[in-house]
C-alpha cells in the first residue's frame, strides 16, 4: 500500500513534465498520452526496485525513451511512405509560433533516437553522461547522435539553420 501511495505521489508530481517530454518525443498528443501510459505502467511494475535506487527520474526517462523507440517501430510498420511529406510548414522566419511549428515538423523527420537525444539534451537539460544512461548507450554515442541530429535538422529543415547553430 505504501508503494502504491508513493507511486501515485510521484505520478501526480511529475505527470506534466513527463507529458511534455513524451510530446516532444512523439510529436502528437495522442501518441504522447499512450507513451506516458505505457511508461508509467512499466514503472509501476518495478516500482519498489525503482525507488530503492533513489531518484526515479533516470529510470523513468530510460523507460520512456525505450518505449518511444518501440512504439515508433510498431507504428512505422503501418506508415504509408511517400516521397514528400504531406504538409511542409514554411516559416517566415519572424513568428515564434511558426518557428516552433517548423521545429516540430523537423523533429518529426528525425530518427527516434536522434529526436530523443535532442529532447534529453536540450529540453531535459541532461548532461551527456545522464543522456547516455537514459538512452543506454555510451557518451561518445550521445555526442555523435547529437551531432548527427543537429546536422540532420539543418539538412531536413534548412530554414532552421540559425536555430541549430552550435554555440559551444
Amino acid at each position, binding site marked *: 500500500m505504501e508503494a*502504491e501511495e508513493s*507511486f*501515485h505521489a510521484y*505520478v501526480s508530481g511529475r*505527470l*506534466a513534465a*513527463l*507529458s*511534455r*517530454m*513524451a*510530446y*516532444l518525443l512523439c510529436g502528437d*498528443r495522442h501518441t*504522447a*498520452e499512450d507513451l*506516458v*501510459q505505457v511508461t*508509467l*505502467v*512499466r*514503472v*509501476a*511494475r*518495478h*516500482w519498489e526496485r525503482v525507488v530503492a535506487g533513489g531518484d526515479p527520474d533516470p529510470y523513468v526517462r530510460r523507460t520512456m525513451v525505450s518505449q518511444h523507440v518501440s512504439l515508433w517501430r510498431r507504428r512505422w510498420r503501418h506508415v504509408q511512405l511517400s516521397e514528400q511529406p504531406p504538409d511542409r510548414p514554411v516559416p517566415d522566419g519572424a513568428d*515564434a509560433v511558426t*518557428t*516552433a511549428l517548423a*521545429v*516540430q515538423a523537423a523533429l518529426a523527420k528525425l530518427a527516434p533516437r536522434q529526436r530523443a537525444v*535532442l*529532447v534529453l539534451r*536540450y*529540453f531535459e*537539460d541532461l548532461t551527456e553522461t545522464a543522456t547516455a544512461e537514459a538512452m543506454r548507450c555510451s557518451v561518445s554515442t550521445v555526442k555523435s547522435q547529437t551531432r548527427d541530429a*543537429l546536422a540532420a535538422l539543418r539538412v531536413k529543415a534548412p530554414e532552421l539553420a*540559425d*536555430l*541549430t*547553430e*552550435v*554555440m*559551444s
Partner: protein
Amino acid sequence: MTVPLRDTLRELGERMPPARLPADLWRRGRRQRHRGRVIVAAVIAALLCATVAAVPGLHVEPHPAEGGPAIPRSVELPYFWQATVDMAPPGPATVLFGGDSAGLSSDPFEEEGGKLAVVGRNGAYRVLRYGEQEIRAGQDVRLSPDGNLVAQSELTGGPAGWLVVTDLRTGRSRGYGDKSPACCFAVAAWRPDSGAVLGVHYNPGDIMLTGTDVKAGTSAQYVLVDLAGGAMAPVDDAFMDDDSDDSAWLAAFAPDGRGFVATRPAAGGTELRGYDATGRRLWTRDLGNRRLAGAGAYTPDGSGVALLTIDGCTRQCDHDQLAARRWQVSYVDPATGAGREGPALPAVTGPAVRALGWTGDTLIVVQYESEDGVTPSQDETGWEPTRHVRVLALRPDGTISVALDPPADVSSIDIAQDLLRDGQFGGPVPAPSILPARWPVVAQGALFALCLLVPVLLATVAVVVVLRAVRRRRAAART
C-alpha cells in the same frame, strides 16, 4: 549549446497538457509484474526439464558406493514411467527384482503385461517389460553371473526367439532359436562365465514313448545355448513335463563351469542328473521329495551340490502348512551323485527357499512368503501366491541374517553372482530417479490429468469472470 533550440523545445512542450491516465494504472503494472514472474518461472522450469532430459550426464542418479559396487541392503520401487533398459542402459546390474507395485505391474497407459526392475551398479533403476504379468526375477528371467546380461524367453519390443538375451550395458537384445512362441522355453541357469545359458525347451502336443506307454503331452529337453556363436546343443534325452512349476530348482553350474546338474520329473518325484561341460550325462539319482537348492547350489570349491529337504507338507499344502515348512540343506557329490557331508547350515522356515549362491561357507538364499489366500493347488514360488521375498544368509555357526530386505511389494529377486560371491552386501539403498522416463507414458499421464483438470479450470475461470464483472458494476455504481 543551441540556446534557441532549447527555448523552442520548451515552448513546444508547453503545448502538451498533462496526459490523461487510466484509474487502474498501478494495478495494470502489478498485473504485468505477476504475469512476468509466471512466465519467467515457466520458462526456467521448461529449460530445466529440457536440459535434464536432453543431457545424459545431468540425469540425477545416485553414484556407486565408495569402495566399489555392493549389493544394496534393500531396494526402492521404480516409478511407473521409469525408462526401459533399451532406452537408457543402466550398465551392469546388482539386483533384478519383480513384484506387483504400480511401477512393476502394467499401468493404464500401456499394453497389459508386467515389468522387472534392474538396479545398476551406479544406482540407476530401469525396467524390462514383458507381455506376461506374472514374470519372476531369478526364475523366468535370470541375471548373468557378471551382472551384464539378462536371459528371458520373451521381452516386449525384443527380438524373436525362444531365448532373448539383453545386454544391460548397451540395451540391445539378441534372440536365439527359431520363432517358436515364448511359452516354450524356460531359462534354467547361467554358465559361470556368462557365456552360455542352460534352458528347457518345451514342445506342447508332442507324443512320447515312455517305456511301453505312449503319452501325449508336453515334451521337454534341456538345451545349452552358446551366446557368442548361437549354437544350441541338446542336453540328454527329452522327458515329459508334469506341469509342475519347479523353475526355482531346475539346474546349477559348477563354479569352474566344468559340469552342471539338472532336474527332471520322475515317477517317484524328482530326478537329478549330473553332466560334464559338454552336456554328457555322468550319473542319475532320485531325489524323492528333496529338491536341488537352486542355481547357486554348488559349493564354492565345487565339491558338493546343495539339496533342500522339506520338513513338513510337501504337496498340495494350504497357507499354514506352507508357512510351517522347514527347509534343511544336505549335499550330494557332483562327481557321482552320492550323498556326502557339507557345511551344516540352519534350517529355514517358509513356503519356499531357493539358493542364490555362496559367499565363503555362507549360503545365500531367497525366502518366500505366501499370500494369505493361497490355495493348495498354487505353486509356492508363483507370482500370485507370493507376497514377499527376502534374501537370507545361512551360516555354519547356525545363525541366519537378512542380507537384503526389499519393500513389501517385491515378490521375486535375483542377484549378480560376482558380487554375491565376494560378499559385497549391505550397500546403500539407491533411490530411483524420476528421469529418464518413458515419455509416452508421461505424456499420456499428463493428458489424463489435464482432462481431469479441465472442468476445474473452467469453473475457476467462470468464478473469476463473474467476480470481476460484479466488481466492475459496483465500481460503476459508485461513480
